[in-house]
């Protein structure tokens, strides 16, 4: 059974993270942006798991749990926000929600 080099895991995490980031940057639909954030969080969690595995410690997994918690909270609040934005502005276009312009 061949072992996995740690960098491979990290490279996967990097690639997933970058894909999420690209999506976040190119999407205007705010729901898509939320999805992208989920991808990125997931990638970050992957990196922690790889690190935990690298040192054979449970800490990486604990961190993943925290990320998970945070992601859950974030999604719930984020979705509520999306609903509000849609309700107020009748659009899911994040560019149009630009009333905070300085």
């Amino acid at each position, binding site marked *: *059974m*061949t*072992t*996995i*080099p*740690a*960098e*491979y*895991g*990290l*490279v996967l995490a*990097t*690639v*997933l993270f*970058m*894909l*999420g*980031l*690209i*999506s976040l*940057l*190119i*999407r*205007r*639909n705010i*729901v*898509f942006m939320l*999805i992208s954030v*989920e*991808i990125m969080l*997931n990638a970050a969690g*992957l990196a922690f*798991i*790889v690190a*935990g*595995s690298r040192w*054979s410690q*449970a*800490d990486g*997994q*604990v961190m*993943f*749990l925290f990320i*998970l*918690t*945070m*992601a*859950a*909270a*974030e*999604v*719930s*609040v984020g*979705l*509520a*926000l999306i*609903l509000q934005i849609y*309700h*107020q502005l009748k659009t*899911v276009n994040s560019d149009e929600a630009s009333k905070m312009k300085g």
Partner: protein
Amino acid sequence: MLIIFYIAAAVAVIATVLVITQHNLVHALLYLVVSFLAVAMAFYVLGAPFIAALEVIIYAGAIVVLMIFVIMMLNLRQESVAQEKKWLNARIVIGPVILTLVLAAELLYMLSTETSVHLTGEVIGAKAVGMSLYGHYVIGVELSGILLMAGIVGAYHLGRQKKKVTHRFLEKQEE
């Protein structure tokens, strides 16, 4: 092991690419589930079966379902797919992609400078995680609890359907 990891990784990447290129939200979400499952597979291979299970249950399960509910509540019609097509053109994609690639290149470069270490693939079970979680990281757990509480309250507060209210400053501006 390695091959399973490769396959899982390939599936995860392809699924994710498909997520970000989809115009239809629901399709994208389906690919997202695939991506999460692939990553869960990777977790399993990396020796974290407990986390793999959680990934499937919470990410692929709970979160995605929540999203689908919201999409249903948004009640987006066919026009939104067309609009998504219009927004996702090459001109807008090129800049972020270049930036991200630069970032990625830097990250990968930094990874490549490290000496290669092979993972043992030793399984760290739920028990070990639990010991660590409620021992060393108990403060973090409590904070997470507060965070979730705040998330629930916030989501409830924000999610309430109110009549259209604009802030008084904005109101003044609109006049």
